[in-house]
């Protein structure tokens, strides 16, 4: 019991003294997941609008497929991206495996379903009359989409924040395609799992606390938006 207490005190010390390694790992985690979230958003918001506004065969099926993928295990995506990026894989020539870029790719793939699915449901919660009103005032297709996205801005922002939360807290992809290389691809989650197994509980606890704080910040922001 005392061991845990001592560990916790040391962990807090590491955080408040802005330990170089703690800061570095946290910063890398944030950077990778923010980039992944931004990339996935740039892709999913227009794509979501396209799916929502276009009428095509298999639309329902597509949407339920996307929703099924919300909870796809991260290791499955890790495996998929690993195969794609490995030397003999189709994208092996890019030499991305075990780089932060590979982790970004993995996280983008991971959060695309959530972001796409939640964008589509955000758009469908906007009254159809809004789109009709826009068109009746001379809005083009893309202009109508932007307006409806703006009308759904709270739900869309919530979707983006949720996707970020999923990206920063996953561990499977980061380990499998990042490799947890110290000073290069080590992020909060991979560091925690490695340091714990190596017995450095203090560092793990410090990083775990930070992860919790980030999760708390994400949730507080979500609550603010949804209120």
């Amino acid at each position: 019991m005392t061991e845990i207490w001592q560990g916790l005190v040391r962990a807090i010390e590491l955080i408040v003294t802005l330990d170089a390694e703690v800061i570095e790992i946290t910063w890398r985690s944030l950077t990778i997941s923010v980039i992944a979230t931004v990339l996935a958003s740039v892709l999913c918001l227009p794509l979501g609008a396209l799916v929502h506004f276009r009428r095509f065969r298999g639309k329902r099926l597509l949407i339920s497929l996307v929703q099924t993928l919300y909870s796809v295990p991260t290791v499955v995506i890790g495996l998929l991206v690993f195969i794609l990026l490995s030397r003999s894989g189709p994208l092996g020539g890019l030499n991305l495996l075990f780089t932060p870029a590979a982790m970004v790719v993995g996280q983008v793939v991971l959060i695309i379903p959530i972001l796409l699915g939640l964008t589509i449901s955000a758009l469908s919660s906007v009254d159809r009359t809004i789109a009709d009103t826009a068109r009746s005032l001379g809005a083009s297709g893309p202009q109508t989409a932007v307006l409806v996205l703006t009308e759904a801005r709270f739900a869309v922002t919530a979707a983006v924040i949720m996707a970020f939360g999923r990206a920063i807290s996953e561990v499977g992809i980061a380990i499998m395609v990042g490799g947890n290389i110290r000073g290069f691809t080590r992020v909060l989650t991979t560091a925690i799992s490695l340091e714990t197994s190596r017995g450095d509980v203090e560092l793990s606890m410090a990083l775990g606390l930070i992860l919790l704080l980030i999760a708390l910040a994400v949730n507080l922001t979500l609550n603010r938006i949804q209120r």
Partner: protein
Amino acid sequence: MPLIETNDLCQRYDGRHILRNINLSIEAGEVLALIGPTGAGKTTLLRLLALLDTPTSGAIFFDGANVAGSPRFRLEMRRRMAFVLQKPMAFNASVYDNVASGLRWRGLGRAEVRDQVERVLEMIGLSADRNRNARTLSGGEMQRVAIARAIALDPEVLLLDEPTANLDPVSARRTEELLAAVIRQRSATVILSTHDLAQGQRLADRIGVLINGEIPQIGTSRDIFVSPGSREVAEFVGVENILDGTVLSSAEDVVTVDIGGGLIEAVSDVAVGQRVSVCVRPENVTLALSRLSSSARNSFTGKVTWLSSAGPLARVHVDCGFPLVALVTRRSAADLDLHIGRQVYVTFKASATHVIRTERDS
């Protein structure tokens, strides 16, 4: 050349005919009111004209060009019009941004947008609310903002779907005054739908009656109200006395119609044997206590069966072998001491009737 023309326009939803063979021809600068009961297809027709929907069959010509073109062409055409939907919907933004939206979509510069929006806000009397979120407006205010959003665009064609429905009488009057001002000030072609006949008369040059997805009659309000073209139109425009019968004889433009409970003389040139409906406006029916020796050809005795008030007038139902409704002033109702069961003499002129040919009984 008419500005807008439709050619056998049809719209079907789930196999149901909502609009059937609509042929309209609207001149530039004209104000046309589409009147019709609820569910007649007014919104459906306006949505087609606003290029929001595509018809099942038929064509729409705008300024001579068929609008069934590419999306880009339809957008270009749509930008020459503005449509105020039946259910006014605020964008979740300030009143200013709401009114500015259409101008911005057209790529106008900041200064131009500002001038135009300020001018229109002034006109609708909501300048002070420019920074308010439009979602917080009352129904009447929102309807004015919806109209402002449209007129800010200076459209060649302004389409309005029941602009005063769902408003209290005061807001409805304000909105109608605003529309009247817009119509006076601009040369825009206006097509509006309403189920308020009087509003159609006040605002429009021409009235099209839309019943059951068809336009049985279109013309000046006088045409429609004085000589409705069909029994349905007569019913819709509030002709209360519609008497069905067969023409017995005809002499010098006056026909005698057997309506079962009596014979009616009416000015008309229809042939003997023709099935007709004779329309008599209640305000043209006179009541008296003794038989009047007037030139009125139609004179009957009857008993009052029902009395109700209609503003400054009294509506009197009389049974003269057939039912007839008369509108008299309250004053004369009192003078005549009208009450249920009272015997009265009923007269109306042959020239105060309007005869409609009807199909043979099926």
